[in-house]
Every structure is written in structure tokens, then in C-alpha cells.
């Protein structure tokens, strides 16, 4: 070999080395790359009161009104399910603050749930499989660092969206041929406008990654800060009743301890926004089950324990937001508390006792229970006051706002009629 060849080889090696270093550097930078940094330049207008801290913006999916609009059409589109019978909205109804609506017979209601005798209602998926979990309300998710009832890995709505779309244990939307379906969507004149508008720099915007990015944007735009209690906080002293004011005192006192797990901007343990250096993340066991005195929860529904396999995580779930709680019955992760009275009974007893059946046990004695769930006694008036306070968290603007309503024209297969869209009858926001 000539010296020249070797030198060329050396040069190649040296440049290879340089690229290796560059690659290493890139990888190392990626390690520290946090998409949750604030995008200062984002022009998105967050429609929030001045005292509420701004949500973070994600560098890999900055907010835009056009993404929000596309996400809204997708949220209500049954073509996101394999058999085109379910949309996100089938289990998340606006007039229920986007929890499931058991009064609407759209295929997701399941009143004959066989698996768990304690469960009153959990939704069914598009193919009829029962879901072990109660549909969560979707409220102020832009301030939530972790999504769903019990999965510490779920940090982004666009990651979470993959579970209902593609999950199969149970099947929720059951979209197993996304490429074919995206082809169909790309032929819809509505989407021919909305996708390129939302993702103008994308040569082919009809991609699943854009679907979940748009769904994330829409759900982050679903903002509720106009309940009577919010208005009272902003200075309108007549916004809530005297009873609700007494209930507020009870809620925030150290006898009932409610606020420890349902505190902050959104009355939950979880919180994140631009002014926080570290998001607040915690899951908690509220003594709902204690099967055989071991602290066990029903199999297949054990909380973050299912993901971490850490025994101490048994029965640890998210303490959900109490905003609009009046509208989102039934309660608890498995829908096993029928109304606010049963929820207060549960906490007054310091945990639920189930006397017979496969899940029998005294929840108040669970070794995994949060120490703030210690029980209390209330007079009938105090109970009524507490419920009045909880009801003051109902934001009728949110559940009737046109911004979040089904955008498809009436008569379209995504909106056969407007039945069930708006509050009616005994609904507190009914006209």
C-alpha cells in the first residue's frame, strides 16, 4: 500500500472520527433534550384569566389555532375507529365535561357490567369490549403533566392518544389499518383544507403523527376557568352561595383534608405550567379496595402498579380534577361510586368496606392508603354545604361553548343529529 492510500485512509478515518464525535455529541444533546421547553415565539393565544400561569408549550408540537381546529374535527370523527362507529367523543361528551354520558345510547354505555360487581358504569369500546376504567373528564389538560387514571409514563396527550386509537386490551377505537384510513381522510375535502393548514411545512400532512399532534392541540385548548367558584376567586363575592362558602371552608380545612389531594389550580395532585421548575406528579391510594386485608385491588385494575410492578404502587391512581365534578358521575377509576354522596360516604369512612363477594375487604385498613384519607363526621348541613361547594365548580360556559362542540354539519355521519350535545332536563346548565 502506498503512503498516499494510507493517508487517504487516515483522512477518511479522521473525518469518520469527527462524525462519530458529532454523532455522540448529538446523542448526548438529545439525552438532555426536553421538548417541554417554552416556545417563546409561539403566537398562540391562551384564553385564560390573568392570574392563571401559562401552560408549557412543546417545541415539537407548538400550539396553533389551526391545529386546534383540525384536532376538533378529528376528536368528533368516527373514522378514527376501525369499524367507524366510535370517535373520541363517543366516550367523552361535552355536556358531561367530556366524561362519558350514560344517558346517551351511543354504544359506549354499559349498564350490565359483569366483571366487577362494584362497578356501576364503565364504557364499552367500539367492538363491545368493556373497559376497566371510567372515562375521565377532559378539563384543563394543558396543566396536567401526566394523563389517564394510572400510567406514570403518559406525559403527553399525543402519546396517550395512541392507546384508545390502537390499544387492544381492551379495544377502544380499534384502528388497526391507520395508513388506509389516512388515505380515506386525505380524500375528504374538509381535511384537504384542514391538514395542510395545520401542518403547512409538511409535504404529506396526512400522517398519524399529525393526527395525534392535532388531537393534543385541541385537548390542550379545552380550558375551563369560568365556574361560579372561579368568578368568586376573581372578586365576585356573590358568585357562590353562602352554603358553598361554608363548603369551601370545610374542603380546605384539616379535618376533611380534601385539598391535600385535590388542590392547586385544578383541584388535583398533578400540576404543571411555565412557572414550575419541576412538574408536580403524584398518584395515591384512597382505600377503595383492600381485598382480603392485603391492600390488593381487583386484578387488571391495580393502578400505576400495573405499569411499574412495584408492590407499593398497588391501588395508586390519579386524584382527578374536581372541576365540573357534578357532571361526571359515576366516580372513581372504575365508576364504582354512583354520586357525590357516595363519594363523601367513602371519604367519611376513611375508605370503603365491601362486605361480601370476591372483592370483600375493609378499604380503610389498607396498608397502601394515603394517610390523609382518615375519615371524618359531617352534619347533614355540612354535607349539603360541601356538595354546594363541589357544585360551584361547574363551568356551564365550558360545557356549552361552541368552541368545543361537534364541528361537523348536522346530518353528516359524524353528527347525525344534535341530540345530547347541549345540557337539558335536570342538567345544572340546562336553559
Amino acid at each position, binding site marked *: *500500500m502506498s*503512503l498516499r*492510500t*494510507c493517508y487517504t*485512509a*487516515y483522512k477518511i478515518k479522521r473525518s469518520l472520527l469527527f462524525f462519530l464525535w458529532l454523532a455522540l455529541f448529538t446523542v448526548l444533546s438529545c439525552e438532555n*433534550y*426536553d*421538548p*417541554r421547553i417554552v416556545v417563546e415565539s409561539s403566537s398562540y393565544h391562551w384564553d385564560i384569566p390573568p392570574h392563571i400561569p401559562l401552560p408549557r408549550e412543546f417545541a415539537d408540537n407548538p400550539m396553533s389555532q389551526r391545529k386546534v381546529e383540525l384536532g376538533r374535527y378529528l376528536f368528533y370523527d368516527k373514522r378514527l375507529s376501525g369499524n367507524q362507529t366510535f370517535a373520541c367523543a363517543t366516550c367523552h361528551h361535552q355536556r358531561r365535561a367530556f366524561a362519558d354520558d350514560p344517558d346517551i345510547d351511543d354504544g359506549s354505555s354499559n349498564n350490565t357490567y*359483569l*366483571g*366487577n360487581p362494584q*362497578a356501576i358504569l364503565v364504557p364499552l369500546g367500539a367492538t*363491545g*369490549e*368493556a*373497559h*376497566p376504567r371510567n372515562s375521565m373528564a377532559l378539563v384543563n389538560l394543558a396543566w396536567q403533566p401526566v394523563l389517564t387514571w394510572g*400510567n*406514570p*409514563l*403518559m*406525559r*403527553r396527550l*399525543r*402519546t396517550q392518544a*395512541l*392507546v384508545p*386509537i*390502537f*390499544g*387492544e*386490551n*381492551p379495544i377502544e377505537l380499534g*384502528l*388497526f*389499518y391507520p395508513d388506509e384510513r389516512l388515505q380515506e381522510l386525505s380524500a375528504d375535502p374538509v381535511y384537504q383544507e384542514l391538514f395542510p393548514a395545520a401542518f403547512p411545512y409538511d409535504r404529506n400532512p396526512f*400522517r*398519524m*403523527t399529525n*393526527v*395525534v399532534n392535532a388531537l393534543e392541540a385541541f385537548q390542550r385548548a379545552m380550558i375551563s376557568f369560568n365556574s361560579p367558584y372561579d368568578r368568586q376567586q376573581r372578586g365576585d363575592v356573590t358568585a357562590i352561595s353562602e352554603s358553598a362558602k361554608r363548603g369551601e371552608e370545610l374542603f380546605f380545612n384539616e379535618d376533611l383534608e380534601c385539598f391535600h389531594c385535590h388542590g392547586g389550580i385544578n383541584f388535583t395532585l398533578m400540576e404543571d405550567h411555565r412557572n414550575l421548575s419541576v412538574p408536580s406528579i403524584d398518584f395515591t391510594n384512597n382505600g377503595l379496595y383492600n381485598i382480603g386485608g*392485603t391492600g*390488593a385491588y*381487583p*386484578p*387488571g*385494575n*391495580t393502578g400505576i*402498579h*400495573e*405499569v*411499574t*410492578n*412495584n*408492590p*407499593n404502587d*398497588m391501588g395508586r391512581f390519579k386524584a382527578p380534577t374536581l372541576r365540573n365534578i357534578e357532571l361526571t358521575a359515576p366516580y372513581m377509576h372504575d365508576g364504582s361510586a354512583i354520586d357525590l354522596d357516595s363519594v363523601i360516604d367513602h371519604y367519611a369512612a376513611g375508605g370503603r368496606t365491601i362486605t361480601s363477594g*370476591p372483592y370483600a375487604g375493609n378499604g380503610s385498613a389498607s396498608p397502601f392508603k394515603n394517610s390523609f384519607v382518615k375519615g371524618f363526621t359531617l352534619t347533614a348541613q355540612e354535607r349539603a354545604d360541601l356538595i354546594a361547594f363541589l357544585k360551584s365548580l361547574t363551568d356551564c360556559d365550558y360545557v356549552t361553548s361552541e368552541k368545543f362542540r361537534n364541528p361537523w354539519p348536522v346530518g353528516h355521519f359524524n353528527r347525525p343529529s344534535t341530540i345530547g350535545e347541549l345540557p337539558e332536563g335536570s342538567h345544572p346548565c340546562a336553559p
Partner: protein
Amino acid sequence: MKQITKLLLGLTALSLSYCAHDEEVSETRDITIPFAAKVGSETFDCNASYTGIGAKSGGGSPIAPRDFRFYVHNVELLTDKNETLKVELIQDGQWQYQNVALLDFENGSGTCAATIGPTPATNTVVQGSYKTKQGKINRIRFTVGVPDNLNHNDRAAAPDPLNIAALHWNWTTGYKHARLDFTSTHFANGLDEEFTGQTANTSGTFNIHLGATSCTGDGASGTANCVVKNRPTITLNYTVGQTIVADLKNLLATTDLSVKDKNGPKGCMSALTDPECKGIFNNLGLDFHFDPNNTVPAPERKRGLTSGTEYATSGQTFFRVE
């Protein structure tokens, strides 16, 4: 100064000899490694059914196939001089990405039409190249599954073959390393009352979904960490040209398919509380720390420092060479 010149000359000589040595042994060869899916001696076929499967006394149980897909990564050839030859995979834009390949034996016909997301396309080979080194190739080594560094990527934007919905394991923000589903009339035993949220198992569905579990961290930025990785590394005696056989009958050899499904999803979906995983995991060469009473912290399970739980290690029987 003379000394420095000498030193430089010496270094040049050294680098020359290094260069020469380097080029002498660097011969790149293409390789196609055939894989086959079998049920005992019979070839896996979506239009066939098989009898005598599992540990039921008196001759096993009948099964009808539904799915047979699994990922492999880090494919290496080993020589009799103990050299390791890394197989660089062809980046074909369909079945192979970086060092991962998907083997897919279901073609969506027959009983496989009932799996989740069946596809007519199949892939039965791993294709790539390796650089020759000293010695004769006598073994092959590969790891089943999607490697850690790709397991928590952005699945909605992932390239082929990492964007197949049926192989996403979204609740752990990862992938199913393997998906081996079938039905058995022996397993069709009505309602499993021990698992909430399940309807009657009248179809006799038995799903084997292998994936990493016991996860913490942030699933959205790719930094989730699953300590129970469930990626067996397989080493087989091998000469170039031979076929690697994955045998479902061997995988199920210690599983009685005639008993009622217990605890958790139908079949084995990798949960430590799922009794159907016991024999299957051992036949994959994985430790399975069956823990129905929820007592052992995940990191200890990983290290095998458990007591009071079932703990078994054995050689794998799922793969062989023909």
C-alpha cells in the same frame, strides 16, 4: 530533532502496518438468514390447524393460528476462533431498520384474518452483510424484540417496520417484541370471573404478547425505563445457509391449554401476575418471576434476588436450526 524524526518515521511505519493489516482481513460478505415458523414438524400456516399442542395429559390440545410476528435485533455470527461478526442489516425501508428486523409469518388468510391488523405481506429472512474475521462461522446470536434505544420512540412517526399498530404496546409506550396468537377449543371455557373488564372467552383466544414491563419514567420523550426487559438473547450452532426455526409447539410444551385462563388477559401478556406466562417464558429462555401476591419490588425481580416466588431459568426451546 533526529529523535523526533525517528519517532515520526516509526509512527508512520506503525500506521502503515496498521492500515495494511486492516485492509487485508476486511472482506465484506452479503448474507441472507432464512427464518421459518413451525408448529412441531409442520410449517406454520394460517389455513391449517394443529393437534397435540400443550401439556394436557392424553395428547395435548388442538389450536388454530392467528398471528406469528416477532422482532429480532443485534444479529451476530460467531466463529470457531471466537470472533464476533456483526451483521449490518440492509436498510430496506420495510422490514429492517437500523439493527432491527421484523419476521412476519401471518399472511392474513384463514384463521389469521381474525388477528389484530393482519397483513398479506410476510417476511421470512434477515438480510445484511458482515466483515469476515478469523475462523469459520459456527454459531449465530440474536436478541428477540425491539432494543431499548428504539422501544420508546415516537411510534406515531416511526419508520417501517416500527409503525405497525398491531405491534405497538402503547400502555408501556413501547412495542410487542413478539406476537404469537392462536385459539384453542380447549381454552374456550366461558367467563373468566377473575379478571374485570373481560367478556366471555368463547373464542378460546390465547394471545402471547412479549414486551418489556415494570416501567417508570417519561414515556413521551423516549426516556421510559422498563427494568423487566423480556428480550431473550438466543445463541444457536449455525452454518451459513441453514434456517432458524421458531417452533410454537415447543413454546407451549409446558402449558396446559385445557385449563381455565387465570388472572389477567387471555393467554400471556408478560405481566408478572399472569400464570399463563410461566412455562412460555421459560421456553423462551427468560426468567419469569411469577408473583401473584404482589410482593417483590421490580428491581429485585430483575436481579433474581427473589425468595418465596417462583423462579426458574432454563435454556430456550423456541428456536432451533434446521
